[in-house]
C-alpha cells in the first residue's frame, strides 16, 4: 500500500463568461419588523427598494413590539427609529395594505404579483427579501380561561399603568411559564426576564417558570443575576406545571433530592402568561412553495448548514420568523446578513456567470417528463419552446417557437448534476464534466 490510487478529478475547464445585467432593485415584503431593517440597509446601499406590507401605516409593523421596546433599550435602539427612517426615505417606495400573492422567475428577473386593496399589480424586480411574522399558538393543554399567551399579553399591556388594558390596577402577581412546547427558542426567556424586570418597577411580584433558563443572549447572565437579586423568582420545573384557575402547581427541579420532591404552589396569580409556539404563517408557507425553497416545519432557518443567511434560490433571502423566531436583537443581525447576501447578488449592476459550469439539455432527446424541473434544487429549469430541434439552448431563444423541451437557466444553475443523473432520457449533460469522461475512466483503469 503506497497510496497510489487512480483519481479522476473534476476537469478544470477555463470559464466561459457571460455578462448578465442585474438592475439594482429589490422587493422587500412581509409583516415582520425586520423588513424595515432590510429595506433601510438595502436602500442606503443605493438599491431601489419597494416595501410591501399589509398594514395601513408603517408604524403598525412594529406595533406589537412597543412594549418590548419600552422594556429593552437595545431593541428600542435598533427598531424605534427605523419606522421614521424608512418613512422619511423618499427612495423607498412603500406599498401599504398589500400582500404578495404570486412570485415567479429568477435572479435578476422576478415577477411579483401584489394584491393591494383588492387590485392586483405585477412588479418586475431583481431580488426579493421577505420576513413574515409567525403565528403564535398556545399549546392545547394550556388554553383555559384567564391564561394569556405572550403575544396577547404584550399586545394588551398598557405600559403607562403597568397593567392589562382591561384591568385598573397593575397585576400583583404575574407568572411566565416557559418551555412548554419545545426548547429550541430562547426569545421567550429573554422577553420574560426583561419584561419581568419592567413589571417589578410597578411593584408586581414576578415568577418565571422554565425548564432551563436561556442565558445565551448578550448580557443575559448579568441581568439574570440582577433580576434574582431584585426579587424575581425563577423556578425550574420538572414536569409541566398544572394550572387551576389562579393557581399554579409544579415540582421544583432545583430541589436537591428527587426522592423528596418539593411541590411549589403559587396562589392568586393575576396573570399567567404562557410561551406560545411560533408556527409559520400561511403567507410564508405559500411564498416558500412558489419559489420551491426547501423548509422544515415551515422555517427556512438553519435546517442545512450550507445555507447560512441565504436560500438555495439565488436572489431570494429571508429574515424574521420566516428564517426562525428569534429575539429582536438577534433577528436584527439575521436581517442585516440577509440584506448583505442580497446586496451581493443585485448591488453590482453587471455580473459574469460561467456558462461552462452548468448543465445543458439536448432538446432533441428531451421528453418533457418534468423530472429535472421537479428535482432541481435551485429551481432553474423550466419547460420552454424552441424554434427547431437540436438548437443549442444556451445561445438564446428563437422566435416563433413551436416545440417544447426543458431548458436550464445558466444564470442560476450551479452545475450540481442532479438533473443529469436523474434524466430518464439521458438528455442532460454537465457541460464541464460529461458522462463520457467518467465512463472512459472506469473503462481505462
Amino acid at each position, binding site marked *: 500500500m503506497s497510496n497510489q490510487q487512480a483519481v479522476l478529478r473534476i476537469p478544470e475547464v477555463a470559464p466561459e463568461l457571460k455578462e448578465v445585467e442585474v438592475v439594482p432593485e429589490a422587493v422587500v415584503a412581509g409583516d415582520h419588523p425586520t423588513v424595515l431593517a432590510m429595506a433601510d440597509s438595502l436602500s442606503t*446601499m443605493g438599491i431601489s427598494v419597494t416595501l410591501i406590507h399589509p398594514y395601513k401605516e408603517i408604524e403598525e409593523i412594529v406595533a406589537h413590539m412597543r412594549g418590548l421596546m419600552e422594556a429593552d433599550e437595545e431593541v428600542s435602539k435598533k427598531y424605534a427609529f427605523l419606522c421614521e427612517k424608512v418613512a422619511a426615505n423618499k427612495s423607498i417606495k412603500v406599498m401599504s395594505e398589500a400582500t404578495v400573492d404570486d412570485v415567479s422567475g429568477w435572479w435578476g428577473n422576478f415577477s411579483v404579483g401584489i394584491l393591494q386593496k383588492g387590485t392586483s399589480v405585477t412588479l418586475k424586480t431583481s431580488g426579493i427579501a421577505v420576513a413574515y411574522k409567525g403565528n403564535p399558538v398556545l399549546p392545547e393543554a394550556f388554553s383555559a380561561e384567564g391564561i394569556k399567551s405572550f403575544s396577547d399579553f404584550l399586545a394588551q399591556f398598557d405600559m403607562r399603568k403597568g397593567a392589562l388594558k382591561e384591568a385598573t390596577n397593575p397585576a400583583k402577581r404575574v407568572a411566565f411559564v416557559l418551555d412548554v412546547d419545545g*426548547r429550541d427558542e430562547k426569545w421567550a426567556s429573554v422577553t420574560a426576564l426583561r419584561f419581568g424586570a419592567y413589571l417589578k418597577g410597578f411593584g408586581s411580584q414576578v415568577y418565571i417558570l422554565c425548564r432551563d433558563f*436561556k442565558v445565551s443572549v448578550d448580557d443575559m447572565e*448579568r441581568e439574570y443575576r440582577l433580576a434574582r437579586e431584585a426579587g424575581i423568582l425563577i423556578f425550574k420545573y420538572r414536569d409541566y406545571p398544572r394550572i387551576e384557575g389562579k393557581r399554579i402547581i409544579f415540582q421544583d*427541579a432545583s430541589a436537591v*433530592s428527587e*426522592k423528596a420532591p418539593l411541590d411549589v404552589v403559587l396562589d392568586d396569580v393575576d396573570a399567567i402568561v404562557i410561551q406560545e409556539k411560533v408556527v409559520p404563517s400561511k403567507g410564508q408557507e405559500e411564498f416558500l412553495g412558489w419559489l420551491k425553497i426547501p423548509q422544515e416545519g415551515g422555517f427556512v432557518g438553519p435546517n442545512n448548514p450550507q445555507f*447560512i443567511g441565504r436560500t438555495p434560490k439565488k436572489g431570494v433571502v429571508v429574515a424574521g420568523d420566516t428564517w*426562525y423566531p428569534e429575539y429582536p436583537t438577534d433577528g436584527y443581525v*439575521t436581517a442585516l446578513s440577509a440584506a448583505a447576501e442580497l446586496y451581493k447578488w443585485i448591488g453590482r449592476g453587471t455580473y459574469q456567470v460561467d456558462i461552462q459550469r452548468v448543465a445543458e439539455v439536448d432538446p432533441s432527446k428531451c421528453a418533457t417528463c418534468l423530472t429535472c424541473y421537479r428535482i432541481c434544487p435551485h429551481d432553474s429549469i423550466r419547460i420552454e419552446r424552441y424554434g427547431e430541434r437540436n438548437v443549442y439552448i444556451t445561445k438564446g431563444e428563437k422566435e416563433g417557437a413551436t416545440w417544447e423541451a426543458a431548458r436550464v437557466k445558466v444564470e442560476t444553475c450551479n452545475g450540481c448534476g442532479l438533473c443529469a443523473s436523474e434524466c430518464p432520457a439521458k438528455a442532460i449533460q454537465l457541460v464541464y464534466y460529461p458522462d463520457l469522461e467518467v465512463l472512459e475512466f472506469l473503462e481505462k483503469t
Partner: protein
Amino acid sequence: MSDAHVIVVGGGIAGITCADELAQMGIKVTLLEKEPEIGGWAADYCCKATDRCNRCYVCVSDKERENVRSMGEIALLTNSRVTEVSKNGSGYIVKISRSGDVEETHADAVIFATGFTPFDARKKGEYGYGRYADVLTGLDLERMLREKGNAFKPSDGKVPQSVAFIQCVGSRDESLGHLYCSKACCAYALRMARVIRNQNPESEIYFFYMDIQPAGRLFDETLKACEDDPNFHFVRAIPSKIYQYYQKPGLMMKVLNTEDGEIEERFFDMVVLSIGMEPNEENDLLWEGASLKPGSEGFLDPQSCDEGIFLAGTVSGPKDIERSIMDAKQTVLQTLRYLEGKS
C-alpha cells in the same frame, strides 16, 4: 468604492467570511493571520454528525477556509500581526509586523475579527486539568475526534466507558468575573457526547449542567435524542472536585447526587470540561490606536469603534460558528455602506 482597500485582522471563520464576501464585491482585501495557517479555532473542531448532520457548522468553516486559500483576489498575510493602527486622513495607517519586518499599509477600513481565547481550564484547579491526563477540555476532545475519529483515554489509549461532561467551565462564574454564557458549549458538548455514544455503544455519559442553552432550530431534536438514550444521564449539578487515588486508574469526582441530595463520590474514565470563551488576551494591544473599548464583559464594544473600524465574530462577544458567520456578513454590509458614503 472599487479602489478601496480593507484590512481584515484575524483569519478565523469570521475574518475569512469577511474577506471572502468583500472580495466577491470587488474590493481589495488583505487578510492578516498571526498563525502560519488561516482557519482559527474552528480548524481544530471535529464533525459532530451521528447518522445525520447535527448542524455543528464545522464543515462550513472547513470549506470556507479552502475557498479563501484558493481565491487569488485576497492578499493573504500569515505570520503577521498588527502592531499599530493610526488615523490618516479618511483612512488608517496599519503597521504590520511580519516575521520581524514591519510594513506600513494604508487601509480605508479595518475589520477586527480577532476572536476569543479559550478559557484556560488550569484556572479551575479543582478539576485537575493538566495534572490528570484523562481530564480533557472540550477543545482537546474536538482535536482528538478530528484526528483520531474516536475518543481515547490519553493515559492508556483505551476507549473510555464512562465519560463525564462538566458544563460552564469558565462561563457563568462569578468567582472568575465571567458573568456571561459562552453560548456554544452546551451545543458542542451534547453533540460530541452523541458522537462518543454513537462510536462506543457501551459507553455511558454523565452530563453535569446548570441550564441547557439551545443552539438554533432543531436543537430540541438533539436534546431529545440524548434524553431518550438510556446511557445518557443529565444531572443538574456542577461537580466540586476531581481527584485520583494513589496508583489507581480512573478519576474520582465529588458531586451532588440529585436523587437523594447527598454529596457522593463517582468514578469516571474520562472527564471533559466544556470550556467557554474569554475575551481575546491580545485585545488590549488593539485598544489604543483604533480606540476600541471593552464592553461590560471584556469583549470589545462595537459601538465604541471609530468610523472605518469594524468588529466581526467573537471579538465582540461569544458566538457559535453560525452566528459568527452571520455577524461577519452584517459587518461586511456595514463596511460597504461606510465605503459607499466615503466615495
